[in-house]
């Protein structure tokens, strides 16, 4: 079974596409609408990673400027805007955290997504399920997952930090991710 990231409602996807189309033609109000819709997600992820409001604002600015310059980078056929932006925000924030140049162009970031939910409310309920799964996860597993995702640590760094074997860290991270996927399938 194929399980994807929850997407916005079909009409919301259409709206996203309409906005992106308008942005392609230089419509600044469409850019403002898209910002109003998704800036909270981008900012929350960046702030979680960077723990610094100024740096998070810079990431927010950078991502939406990239979208303004290259609206064609978003491919709605393979991912919803929210998930795509969230992943890009995490990448950019980790890059900023490590003070390195961006490793991926936004057009190269593909997130496999299916429109599994009929509405934003369904999506919110799904996110609650994912949060619940995170909270019931064994603490070492949750910690490894968060260190890798929100702190940008490599598996070697996590192993060194926790004193756990490399293989254990690898397995915890994989099974942790799969458990998030499974909770949406139930």
């Amino acid at each position: 079974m194929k399980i994807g990231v929850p997407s916005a409602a079909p009409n919301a996807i259409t709206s996203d596409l309409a906005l992106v189309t308008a942005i392609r033609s230089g419509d600044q109000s469409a850019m403002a609408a898209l910002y109003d819709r998704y800036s909270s997600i981008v900012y929350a992820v960046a702030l979680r990673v960077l723990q610094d409001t100024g740096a998070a604002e810079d990431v927010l600015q950078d991502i939406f400027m990239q979208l303004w310059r290259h609206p064609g980078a978003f491919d709605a056929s393979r991912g919803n805007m929210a998930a795509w932006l969230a992943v890009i925000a995490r990448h950019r924030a980790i890059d900023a955290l490590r003070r390195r140049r961006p490793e991926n162009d936004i057009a190269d970031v593909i997130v496999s997504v299916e429109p599994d939910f009929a509405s934003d409310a369904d999506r919110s309920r799904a996110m609650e399920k994912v949060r619940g799964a995170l909270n019931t996860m064994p603490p070492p597993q949750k910690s490894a997952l968060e260190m890798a995702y929100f702190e940008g640590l490599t598996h070697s760094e996590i192993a060194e930090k926790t004193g756990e074997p490399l293989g254990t860290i690898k397995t915890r991270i994989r099974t942790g991710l799969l458990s998030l996927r499974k909770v949406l399938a139930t």
Partner: protein
Amino acid sequence: MSAHEQFTDDLALYALGSLEGVERQTLETHLQNCASCRRELELLRGDTSLLALTTAGPKPPARSRQRLMSAIANEPRLPAVVATRTPERRSWWPMLGWLPNLGWIAAAAAVIVCIGLLRQNSNLRQSVASLQAQFTDQGAKLDQTTQIVATLLDPEATKIELVAVGNKPQPRGKAIYQRRNRNLIFFASNLPALPAEKIYELWLFPANGGAPIAAGLFKPDARGGATIVNPPLPQGVAAKNFVVTLEPESGSHESPRGTPVIVGIGE
């Protein structure tokens, strides 16, 4: 079909960007040849986005929106480059399946980008040409103004006043005053030579009836001419009149004590 068993753990780390070294290189090599592992990687990336989407926090400050809107308003748009990738070609890493078409894709992209750059270049050239024209025009006006002022103020310039035939030249003065910027230019001509230990002093008489304000001491040249440019004056004083008086050599400053020599007659 799931990913190859030996790569399952590494795929998860790779999706998080946490795989490094030889393991990363080995996996990337494998991914070039394994569609099922590529598909699993995309799903894992979707799983990681779940982590991001569950993040909650404060909304960005309002200034961020203003900053973005200002930035996009000031940034010229680059021409849109539309991606034409097929699903199998969308991925993070180069895949073998891309290779036969890579040259055509690169060439097409290069042509599109070149067209865009040429247009942008043309627009920039027009903008630069327009700015250069404005700059040249402003420069010419500045040169003209500088020459006029230099001519008026040059003590070596020949200054001859014309009067009605048969009339004897009389002492004259002209004050040009701009209240808003406190600019004052005063020209005098045909003033009598100064007596010993005396000096001329210009006075501004406020329109509100206040005390006269000293606007500069001066000595005329051999032809009786003199110029005062922008003496220190208080802010925002409306002028009713200007008067030149003959004062003791140190000037009177507080209020005119000497004899009026020339008096303004208004516009």
